[in-house]
């Protein structure tokens, strides 16, 4: 794990802080109706997962795909916050020219194959992307995040089974944040040890990982990558985490109902606070540097907002009909 020098770790910290800043700003913008529409699902509270997993990827070579809670993934991969914010606001300078919005961020260049809004719908896509890597012997793997809720529909079963039959190079990470909308995991899954499902597909059960601990996530996914690289096929990891901003920001009822639990997570298991503690233990006198990161990310997000709000809305027939088909 030679790559884990101070510079790398500080960069992870930056990613996580940037994401938190971006998400909380989105929340604010949504309440001010500067971001519009029904759906906005924030990644706050789950930052360690994205950063820890992506830390193992060779960006542009390896692949990643996720559901609608996708802003953090884009930011951590290195997408320009300006472009992401413009997409959030439906502007022409957004990553999809405003056509996709918050739930459908993507970057072809970074092999970020998108956020998807039909629960479980992206899982077979992950299998197919893994098939390409295997077929063309690129040596790349796919990171596919899976909601705990998503792990209960048919897409999950068929995708992981295929990955098992064909030994596809896919790392499935169940993001167990305790709920699918308001429904707790134990009200939706017959066996709440979601990682154990690996056994029925003949893929490696890698157990659980503390999704709030970026170092632990990194190591777990690293182990997974070794397994995949050695040609042994797919693996399943279950990460335990929590969401800070309800299901979507318009679903306040869930936050209210689980207020105590939520407060407990924020208080004692915040991934950024935990990682900061880790860094401060490891490197003396790093506090100032970390403080600067917070300041800097605020500026970056503020610039992104300004950029996005100055970008025009698409509003022509030509834009409306562009890209229905490949021309």
């Amino acid at each position: 794990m030679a790559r884990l020098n101070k510079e790398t770790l500080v960069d992870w910290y930056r990613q996580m802080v940037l994401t938190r800043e971006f998400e909380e700003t989105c929340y604010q913008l949504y309440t001010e109706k500067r971001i519009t529409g029904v759906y906005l699902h924030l990644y706050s509270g789950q930052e360690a997962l994205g950063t820890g997993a992506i830390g193992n990827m060779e960006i542009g070579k390896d692949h990643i795909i996720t559901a609608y809670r996708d802003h953090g993934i884009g930011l951590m991969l290195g997408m320009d916050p300006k472009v992401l914010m413009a997409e959030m606001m439906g502007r022409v300078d957004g990553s999809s020219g405003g056509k996709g919005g918050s739930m459908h961020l993507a970057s072809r260049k970074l092999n970020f194959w998108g956020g998807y809004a039909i629960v479980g719908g992206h899982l077979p896509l992950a299998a197919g992307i893994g098939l390409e890597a295997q077929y063309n012997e690129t040596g790349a793997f796919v990171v596919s995040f899976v909601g705990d809720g998503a792990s209960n529909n048919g897409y999950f079963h068929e995708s992981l089974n295929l990955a098992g039959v064909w030994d596809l190079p896919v790392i499935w990470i169940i993001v167990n944040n305790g709920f699918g909308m308001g429904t707790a995991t134990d009200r939706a899954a017959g066996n709440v040890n979601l990682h154990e499902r690996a056994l029925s597909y003949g893929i490696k059960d890698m157990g659980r990982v503390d999704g709030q601990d970026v170092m632990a996530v990194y190591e777990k996914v690293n182990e997974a990558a070794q397994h995949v690289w050695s040609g042994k096929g797919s693996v399943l990891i279950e990460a335990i985490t929590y969401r800070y901003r309800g299901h979507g920001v318009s679903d306040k009822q869930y936050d209210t109902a689980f207020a105590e639990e939520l407060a407990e997570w924020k208080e004692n298991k915040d991934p950024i606070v935990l990682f900061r503690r880790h860094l401060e233990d490891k490197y003396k006198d790093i506090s100032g540097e970390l403080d600067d990161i917070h300041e800097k990310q605020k500026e970056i997000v503020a610039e992104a907002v300004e950029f996005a709000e100055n970008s025009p809305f698409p509003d022509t027939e030509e834009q409306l009909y562009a890209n229905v088909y490949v021309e």
Partner: protein
Amino acid sequence: MATKNLPMREALRQALLEEMRRDERVFVMGEEVGQWQGTHRVTRGFIEEFGEKRVRDTPISEMVIGGAAVGAAMAGLRPVAEFMTINFAFLALDALINHAAKIHYMFDGMFKVPAVFRAATGWGDQATATHSHMPEPIFAHFPGMYVGSPSNSADAYGMLKASIRDENPVLFTESIGLYGRPGPMPEDESGDYVLPIGKGNVVQEGTDVSIFTYARGVEWAKQAARTLSKDGVSVEIVDLRWLRPLDTDIIFESFKKTNRAVIVEESLPMYSFGSELAAQIQENCFDYMDAPIKRVSAADVPLPYSKYLELMALPDEDKVVSAVKEII
């Protein structure tokens, strides 16, 4: 006695509540219908009254929500299965199309499937491509299942009751944009106000042009009719209520009177409600046609997120007015 006014979601709730009280076999299942009172609040208070036996929260598993409703119905229960939105019913297409709609015929009447599949439908509010559909015509393509969608509170009440009491499977969709819309309830408070399946309704009589539509289209048609009346155009509005069975009698009768038709639908234009009606009219009323039939629908694109593009893509009152003006 003045009739009550209720938002459409409350009218639906009332109908479902009364049917569950009337018939022990009726139960509901779906995502967040119990503990969370239903995403659209149609099952508010149900779990408290009927308990978990008859108000069943499911995992996010549309395939089995649809399929288990078919099985339960075959075996003798009266499931009212809820898809949080119609977009997710696509995951259950096979259960609905290959099983719900075909089993009675395939086994030559041996089994029946008295299930109701409820789903919020329609688009708007930047829900983006995968969450923006009004796909009733897809389901109505297949014989064996009824498909209906109400435009107002009283109809919602009477149509849902009819669906639950019928022996056939029914896909019953509810426009998201109409849930909060208040409207008068039926005067008949006996609990047996049941609107016949497959019967449309003349919402407003007129002489110059017929607007055929359903669900939220009725609202646009009414607004357009008001605008057009200022120019002296007399508009007849027919709310079909059901895509299957389709009330062709009401369509032909209206068309034979006005000799002009505009068909308004929230859905996509190709292979649609509009194309079906236009075909039926020209086949059956050719001698009565004074002008080409016009269709107003969504633009033929997957719906974009960005707000102005979205508005451009959707039908509205102005588009209905323009279509009428083109043929009168």
